[in-house]
């Protein structure tokens, strides 16, 4: 029986190796195609074998043709700008839900929870009109504003704060600390795992977002990476410049994959905790 289960384990591993290889072929192709010189593709453009001398030409051309520097900057402003404000709003709200008693707390908490499901893409039509009314159409602030509060972040901070024993705060309060000093110097440092988890999820959600910035921004100089990539992809399709497309796509994915490589464990934990993005 033991021998049979060892053999079974090997079969499962073998099947998974094949599956994972097939699952990864889109990325493998991107990698191989992006370093492929222009003249070595042709009919074998789809080949997964790097049977050529690698070149950076595709990356250089993508960076020159696609205003990627501007897109990177805009995306960074959006993603980090949202995160910075969110950290303030979710810390305050999370603290209130975790530590304070007040009438209506449960009802308000459900108002937050329900928002977890009413994800913004479904409200693009009225939200766009709101942004127009506020005079923020075609601005990065208009892209960011709807995300400055986060029900998920509030929920996460509430859970995190609740796991911290009250003794620490009481000691600080006896020493004469004000509530915001307690929050800043005692609770937030201890809530770091929760904050890191939230930051990763939030950064990724807004780095990847497409539909909303597509609707709010209408000038090339204001576009984010995803919007830029979409028009870039449509452009390269006409010219059949697949190596260029692969290089451009890789440039968009690279920061995320690098972040994932560094924070792999935190990523996995935070995603399992979150379920919902942003």
């Amino acid at each position: 029986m033991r021998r049979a289960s060892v053999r079974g384990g090997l079969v499962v591993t073998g099947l998974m190796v094949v599956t994972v290889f097939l699952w990864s072929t889109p990325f493998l192709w991107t990698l191989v195609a992006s370093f492929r010189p222009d003249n070595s593709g042709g009919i074998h453009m789809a080949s997964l074998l790097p049977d050529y001398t690698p070149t950076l030409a595709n990356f250089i051309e993508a960076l020159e043709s696609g205003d990627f520097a501007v897109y990177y900057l805009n995306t960074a402003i959006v993603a980090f700008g949202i995160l910075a404000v969110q950290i303030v709003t979710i810390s305050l709200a999370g603290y209130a839900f975790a530590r304070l008693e007040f009438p209506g707390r449960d009802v308000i908490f459900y108002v937050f929870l329900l928002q977890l499901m009413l994800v913004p893409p479904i409200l693009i039509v009225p939200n766009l009109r709101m942004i127009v009314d506020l005079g923020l159409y075609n601005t990065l602030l208009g892209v960011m504003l709807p995300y400055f509060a986060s029900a998920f972040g509030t929920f996460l901070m509430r859970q995190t704060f609740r796991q911290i024993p009250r003794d620490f705060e009481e000691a600080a309060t006896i020493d004469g600390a004000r509530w915001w000093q307690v929050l800043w110097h005692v609770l937030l440092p201890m809530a770091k795992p929760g904050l890191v988890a939230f930051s990763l999820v939030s950064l990724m959600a807004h780095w990847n977002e497409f539909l909303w910035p597509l609707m709010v921004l209408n000038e090339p100089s204001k576009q984010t990476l995803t919007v830029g990539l979409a028009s870039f992809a449509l452009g390269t399709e006409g010219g059949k410049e697949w190596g260029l497309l692969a290089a451009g796509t890789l440039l968009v994915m690279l920061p995320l994959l690098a972040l994932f490589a560094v924070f792999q464990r935190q990523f996995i934990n935070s995603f399992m905790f979150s379920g919902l993005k942003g």
Partner: protein
Amino acid sequence: MRPRWARRTWPYLLLAPSLLLLAAFTYLPIVRVAWESFYDKPHGAPASLFVGLRNYSDLFADKAFTQAVINNLVYAVGTVPASMALALLFALALQRSGRVNAVMRALLLFPSMVPLVAAASLFFFIFLPGVGLFDYYLGKLGLHGFNWLGDPDVALWSLVGITVWKNAGYYMLFYLAGLQTLPGDVLEAATIDGANGWQRLRHIIVPLLAPTTSFVLVIALINVLTQVDHVIVLTKGGPSNSTKLVLYYIFEQAHENFAYGRAAAASVISVSVLLAVSLVSLKTMERGAHAAG
């Protein structure tokens, strides 16, 4: 000590920034979109007119909309069970720790890390007839591919494929977490009693994972209603409306046809479906998030 009124109001002050933003960008928009779904602004008219339920009757009379609803149902049936079943299988196969399994888990997770737009632009090439990745290797096996994105009978299923590819690894994470909470002694007892792998899966593992499954189901259903980036990049709803999903229809009406009344009516229907899903699952969400945390 601070005065009593200050102590009373300051919890609300801490919540005010969040509540204000939630009101402005979630709850008021719902009211507003419901309101606007009863109005229409004919071409050249100076102001919107109250039209009652006409936007709704127009909506259901529009073949493109009913097609979008049907497409969305097919898309849900195509993506949700397949990606969840694969997620569970992946989790079962890779649940043991070890370096090889860790690498394989990370590779399966990669697709969910990248923007849907990036995935879509890769599949531009992968689905390319003749020289694309699929057809190139199918050709080596002596097989013929389809016109993946150009054939109205196939295109929606190509998008289903992208979605399953992208989401299965993500859902796997939840099943991995769920599997860790299973009581080992129950499984061991079942094994000693002679239950084979399939019996253990069917009668013990799957029922015990029910909370995880309902949690993942909610996320998967939300994704079905809210993700259309790949439609925008790859097919624009075509060919002949075969890949038009409801959110894409809304986007098109509002952004390209400037038919706000109709876009509003379609939004109201989407939001209602999402609200129904949420109300049913609020409890599940809370439980699932606790279990996963």
